[in-house]
């Protein structure tokens, strides 16, 4: 538990924009550590559940006795953006390693259902999301929450305080738009 994070969360919730940056930095460290632990631990067919991960981070970092349910929603919004940055940073590192090493490329004939996300795909998605945010920031948040954290439409709606229908409409358009944008880049 981190009293500072709780304070930051509350400060941000009550309109202190500067608190967000510090909050994000603190959340990044914890989420990153958790994500790596999840990814590296021996897995028995369980895939990484980002929702569980963010929840765990929330429970670890925030003093529940001092926050309201809105603060939890705020935390998820921050965590979604943070998850995005963690994955994009990891992708960037992987891509750089590949370029540097001239490593032998493996053709492992992935089965379709488990094809891992390629670093370059994620980097292109990141760029496309930035472009999307310029037209409609809310849509980018929807994508972050649904794609990077794995929230349902209802949970996303709760975090963003909009209707689930709006989430679904935003998601449909964003999905098509991002796919097109990524194909074009």
């Amino acid at each position, binding site marked *: 538990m981190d009293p500072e994070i709780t304070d930051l969360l509350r400060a941000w919730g009550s309109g202190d924009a500067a608190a967000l940056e510090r909050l994000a930095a603190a959340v990044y460290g914890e989420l990153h550590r958790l994500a790596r632990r999840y990814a590296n631990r021996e897995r028995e067919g369980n895939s990484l559940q980002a929702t569980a991960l963010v929840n765990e981070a929330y429970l670890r970092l925030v003093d529940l006795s001092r926050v309201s349910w809105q603060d939890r929603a705020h935390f998820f919004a921050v965590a979604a953006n943070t998850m995005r940055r963690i*994955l994009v940073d990891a992708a960037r590192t992987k891509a750089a390693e590949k370029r540097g090493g*001239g490593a032998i490329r493996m053709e492992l004939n992935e089965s379709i259902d488990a094809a891992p996300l390629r670093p370059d795909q994620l980097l292109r998605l990141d760029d496309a999301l930035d472009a999307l945010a310029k037209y409609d920031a809310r849509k980018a948040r929807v994508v972050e929450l649904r794609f990077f954290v794995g929230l349902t439409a209802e949970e996303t709606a709760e975090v963003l305080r909009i209707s689930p229908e709006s989430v679904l409409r935003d998601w449909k358009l964003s999905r098509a738009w991002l796919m097109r944008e990524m194909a074009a880049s």
Partner: protein
Amino acid sequence: MTPDQFREMEDLYHRARALSPEQRDTFLKDAGAADAGLLGAVQSLLAKDSVEGILDRPAAQTAENLLGDSDRARWNPGTRVGSFEIVGRLGAGGMGEVFRARDTRLGRDVAIKVSHEEFGARFQREARAISSLNHPNICTLYDVGPNYLVMELVEGRTLAERIKRSPIPLDEALGIAQQIADALGAAHEKGITHRDLKPGNINIKPDGTVKVLDFGLAKMGGGPTAQSDDSPAPTSGPTQKGVILGTAAYMSPEQARGKEADSRADIWAFGVVLYEMLTGQKLFVGADLSETLASVIKEQPALERAPAKVQRLLRSCLEKEPKLRLQAIGDWRLLLEDRPAARTGASRRAWAVAAMLSVVAAVALWAPWRAEKPSNLPLVRLDVDLGDDVSLPDVTSAVAISPDGTRLAYLSGTPPRLFTRRLDQAKAVELPGTQEASTPFFSPDGRWVGFYSNHMLNKISVTGGAVVPIGNLGGDNLAGASWSEDGSIFASVAFQRGLLRIPAGGGPPESIAGLGDGDIVFNAPQVLPGGKAILLSASKALGQDRKTIEVFTLADRRRKVVARGGSLARYLPTSTGVGHLVYVYMGTLFAIPFDLAKLETRGTAVPVLDDVAHDSTGSSQFDFSLAPSGHGTLVYRRASNGDAGMAALQWVAQTGKMETLRAKPGLYSMPRLSPDGTQVALTVLEGGSKDIWVYDPRRDAMTRVTFGGAIFRWAIWSPDGRYLVFTSDGIGIFQARADGVSQPQALMHDRPLQWPCSFTPDGKRLAYFEAAGNFQIWTVPVEDMGGRLKAGKPEQFLKSSFNDAAPMFSPDGRWLAYSSDESGRYEVYVRAFPSPASGQGGKWQVSNTGAMWPHWSRSGHEIVYLSGDQIMAASYTVRGDTFIAEKPRVRIPDFNAIDWTSWDLAPDGRSLLVATPVDAADPRQREHEVVFLENFFDELRRRVPLTGNIPAQ
């Protein structure tokens, strides 16, 4: 796009989505999307709805591979990975590093093999199966991590080290063989194949226990045993050339051909290993990969050096055809021969003969099979990835191969620098001081690379060292250079000075052929063998048609045109004085026989490759070497527009939703599902020839059924799934067994242009159409002779003055659907089969909007066909002799196949298998890939025979 336009696009998108696909276009036009850009944007968004993408699964599920640790520090002594504590490093192999670690839970030491990259899910699943193997002679796989394997720690030496010391006495060797056979037997019983058995994978512990390592791990990739399941024989797909070398010698013929290996491949390798133990010699050796593979496929190894006792066993293990081979490893001892004492004399004599033979073989060359020198090796295609860090510039001759075929020189980076790479090594060497280099070319001895930079012609040793200036070319760009045997470099420069001769040791350039009237440049000179003439491509102006291929004779300084329209001409020499002249026109490589003495071509030029990179000036990128041993290697870069026609295999569901079956694109056409729906026969265009392959999605394996030389296409399955019947344009209808074990044989070859379409359900009759003026439909009785089909007397089904094509039998065999243009355009019709005796059978029209390719649904009463860009389905009922087709409905709008034949209906009657066009490949990829065609000269001799009295080699 402005934010307002974005909102408008969003609004139109949501409103259009609420409509049926048919209504959308009208709606969008009516909605006054006057702005064509906006209309296109909305349509392109709608199109994405039916496509699967990375956004469809939460990132965390698919991105774990990004989060795992990849830093080396993780494997330092003292660090812990799970319950393992790293003790130290044991060594490095092709796949990565091996560490010794302590399993703190179980208190034992283990070996951890760490791969450079993450394993795929599929590999992890397979590895889990392998970890179930528990046998005293198998190195146990304990655990599989995201990029590491935890295995039993085996102390001792490898069998390879043991053999290197000396051949192994018979009794000891049989003891080792017994343990290897026990290990294989235990694995085979569980359906696990080793796939890469070799002395380097077999350990002998100090107590004599044999441990077979790396069971089934050959698929792991990245290592010396990489890709042995579906590479390195004729194939595409990036391969680290040379790195496979170590393993090819133990590969079974079916693996060498690129087919999937089963337990019998291990039995082959068992035989090869046994031979090597007993003789200390490798059984299959080649100067390089392709020679080794060719010898595995073709040569009958001489086994005389092995003791008589094991010869019958070895012969059985080393049967080329898996079905004739020893089938179960457990039976190996039954094939040992204990000769009676009375025959020792004969046996000794046999030994003496064998010893003599081995001397002969050693003199002939150092491998037994070389005594019969192969002269006609199969083409081997290797797509070589030079590494992600390589970016070959898009200029003429960015890549050159050394005359002995062992080394590549290439340009990479911005500004371009020169690199060389020995092909048996994984790493390239940058040649220092070569910034701004262009036009690399080798010296005849392969020790130097010449190149141009900053007005200067230079050379540098292939191993590095100082850049040595040869001559100043002034301000004129180099358009190609060729280094002659006698130490002159012929360099061609743009503008006035034309062709220059410069001593390779340095000196002032001498102009020997100025440009003539209207000439712009002499491209890509090549000193012809003998050094008396130069082959060059003269450009009158930029563009393809203004080019002539000429020969310039040094004695009389005359130019002579030998061909027109192409560029980058090269003469590929033979020992006979007649070789091939090859040149590129619009990305197609043509070959024409060329008489070196007369300096003229013979016959006509034939296209042999259609994807050679070229630019708007017609300049192109390829080079050749005579290696290996005159079989010839062509190295080239693939054209960007070579991607035209690239397709992926997709399932398209009734909803239009697509799911990829084989993502790796290729020049696929006419996919046909096997009757049980588990395999796909395909026509694949590769290296200028079309062949039939069978794709098995469960194993993601492509098996080649026909081998080059002719155009084979249009394959269909027999109803029992045992045979493929296909067409060879200009020859007739062919057949082959679907498992690829037989050569294609003619089924009918009295008429040249026939296309098989469908069998009756009992497989006893084949319907096809043939071109005899117009398309006409025929059927022919077919009999299974056991291993091949035999055709009877063909009968014309329908005689008309129209084009009738694509005859397809109904699932009950009573009806024949086909396409006919009798109405002025093609429509689908149905008639009874066989035609009623009256000759006046009914005919029912099914389609009404233009249609080709009827397919019968096997499950429902439906005919499915392609009309324009829509897949239509028409239900039907049968009443007595009457066929009643209902009004067709649109099944899939906006259907997109690579061509109109390239789809098939799944056995469930619902999904379609489609070869769909894919977007041009990642251009970045082309920047670091080159294609090697080994034994290219042999291939040319087959496809463009050299006329004249050329002695058979």
